[in-house]
């Protein structure tokens, strides 16, 4: 903790200047922003040393939502940990489900049926859209723009309707299973989804018209929170933040998983690496997600949605009650979990905020020996200090909002 006594080093103390305002000596003021602040979403404390309205030094303190995700995972079977991953990034839970299940499947060397891969992409992209809507809406609200917030939150509600139709829950989905998904797409889901998605993009268009050309909004976001792409990379920043800096690093493109290799989509990149570009990149990613979902619905094949591998296949309930083998199968799966061969894998997917990786170490039993989540929010937050230092206090709000720190994921 720095001493509050010394004079502000930014203000020269010796040589008197012609400008009397520069000779005014004020001690730094320490301000605590958070952990629960009306202008931030997410529980984080920022201890800011202010010289007037300028941030001289910042100390970001996370951990308010730490609840031992990794310790909890080590004591549960692989299939029991899927609901915990919902709670990592609770605004895009499907992507966490997909990331975790893909990591376990990689460890088991398991192939999922093609229909399942398409469903996972559809569910994941809907989730990503929901996350981006929430991020942009909350940012608009915290910059005092109430109307776009209402539009965007309604758009997010439409995405939640889709998740609801898929799995019966709006936020904590628990839809993806190891080796498949919990249920096939409901009847007529493509028409239902197309209607909701188009309505949500219409709402996005309204918010876009209200924000993008709005001089007040642009004044707040243009040029603020700037950080050079090299610094972003050094901090491990990924996702829309890194792409807004002009680095086209998107895991869906550079290391395609599921069916992303077959889809036609663009990776939007910015060039100024400021808050406005981060906003624009998210805006464009929403439209690209819509494109991807439309292609998935056009290409999705018929067939099973669950793998037939005996390590993960749950026997049919009717047979469990009537036949010995299926009963044993069910009993072993429940009490031992599916046995996963020893080894370690790291599997990355593109989360809504950046590269979401799961590093799983297995000792050959049904429980992970270690289950580590590489959370994009955590690395992104580590760059916040550099983004806000030297800027104005008011710029902290849009910078923090466009990082889109999700406490559940950052603090695990």
């Amino acid at each position, binding site marked *: 903790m720095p001493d509050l006594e010394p004079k502000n080093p930014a203000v020269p103390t010796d040589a008197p200047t012609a400008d009397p305002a520069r000779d005014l000596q004020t001690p730094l003021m320490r301000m605590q922003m958070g952990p629960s602040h009306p202008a931030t979403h997410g529980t984080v404390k920022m201890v800011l040393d202010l010289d007037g309205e300028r941030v001289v030094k910042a100390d970001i303190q996370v951990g308010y939502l730490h609840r031992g995700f990794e310790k909890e995972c080590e004591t549960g079977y692989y299939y029991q940990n899927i609901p915990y991953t919902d709670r990592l990034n609770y605004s895009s839970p499907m992507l966490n489900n997909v990331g975790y299940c893909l990591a376990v499947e990689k460890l088991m060397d398991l192939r999922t049926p093609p229909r399942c891969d398409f469903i996972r992409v559809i569910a994941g992209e809907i989730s990503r859209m929901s996350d981006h809507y929430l991020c942009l809406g909350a940012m608009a609200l915290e910059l005092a723009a109430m109307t776009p917030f209402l539009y965007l939150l309604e758009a997010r509600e439409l995405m939640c309707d889709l998740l609801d139709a898929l799995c019966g829950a709006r936020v904590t989905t628990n839809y993806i299973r190891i080796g498949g998904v919990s249920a096939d797409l409901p009847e007529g889901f493509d028409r239902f989804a197309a209607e909701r998605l188009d309505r949500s993009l219409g709402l996005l268009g309204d918010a876009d018209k209200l924000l993008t050309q709005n001089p007040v909004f642009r004044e707040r976001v243009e040029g603020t929170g700037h950080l050079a792409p090299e610094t972003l990379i*050094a901090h491990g920043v990924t996702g829309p933040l890194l792409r807004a800096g002009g680095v086209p690093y998107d895991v869906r493109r550079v290391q395609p998983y599921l069916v992303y290799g077959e889809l036609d989509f663009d990776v939007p990149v910015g060039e100024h690496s400021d808050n406005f570009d981060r906003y624009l990149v998210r805006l464009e990613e929403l439209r690209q997600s819509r494109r991807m979902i439309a292609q998935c619905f056009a290409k999705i094949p018929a067939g099973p949605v669950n793998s037939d591998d005996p390590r993960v296949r749950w026997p049919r309930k009717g047979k469990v009650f009537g036949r010995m083998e299926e009963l044993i199968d069910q009993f072993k799966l429940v009490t031992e979990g599916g046995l996963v061969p020893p080894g370690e894998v790291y599997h990355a997917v593109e989360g809504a905020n950046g590269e979401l990786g799961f590093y799983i170490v297995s000792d050959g039993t049904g429980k992970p020996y270690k289950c580590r989540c590489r959370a994009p929010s955590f690395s992104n937050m580590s760059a916040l200090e550099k983004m806000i230092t030297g800027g104005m206090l008011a710029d902290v709000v849009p910078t923090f909002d466009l990082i889109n720190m999700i406490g559940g994921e950052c603090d695990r």
Partner: protein
Amino acid sequence: MSAAEETKTPAAAPPEPSALLQRVIARLGTLVAEHQSFRGEDCIHVAREHILDVARALRDSPELGFDLLLDVTCVDYFGQPDGFQNAPETWDRNHHLVRKRAEWRHRVNLPARGDAPRFAVVYHLVSTRLLHRLRVKCRVPEDQPAIASLSALWAGANWLERETFDLYGIRFDGHPDLRRIYLYDEFVGHPLRKDYAKHDEQPLEPYAGPGAQEPRRPH
């Protein structure tokens, strides 16, 4: 069906190193103590004295170009060698014992410890230009859990190493600001170590923040 029947060690992977590993070995030479590929992922083991040299070489050589440090974490091989050859049943028995009576955790029957040190610090690297990934592992002994900090090379290592220190108690020499990041300063122990039971309780700490010295209002 026991786990031992299915056990296939990572060493059973093809002995020919992958193209990336060949480049890494050509660059680092004898600094690579061991290497393996499993499920298409490349991993090298280095001695912890060399981690700074290895990291700098991986970051700065143009043919490797690992510019993005994705993750720093640690694996606690509590009593187990790297390949998990030591009877997973022992672990299951201990899990059951600890679950039944949490305070019996001192009576767990530990398997014989292998020669390898207890902890492994794990780094995940990716190159945003060449788009390849590498995992680097360093074994760190229990009696002296320290390793050189990489925060001078990657600014993002600062927080990741603080997290590893917080949850595993690995000290990072040369770290500019090594304090706990998730837990409070009075927390006793490091919760992700395998000898920290899930239901361990912490001593209650009196509140010491602003206003703690002021007299309490009557109820």
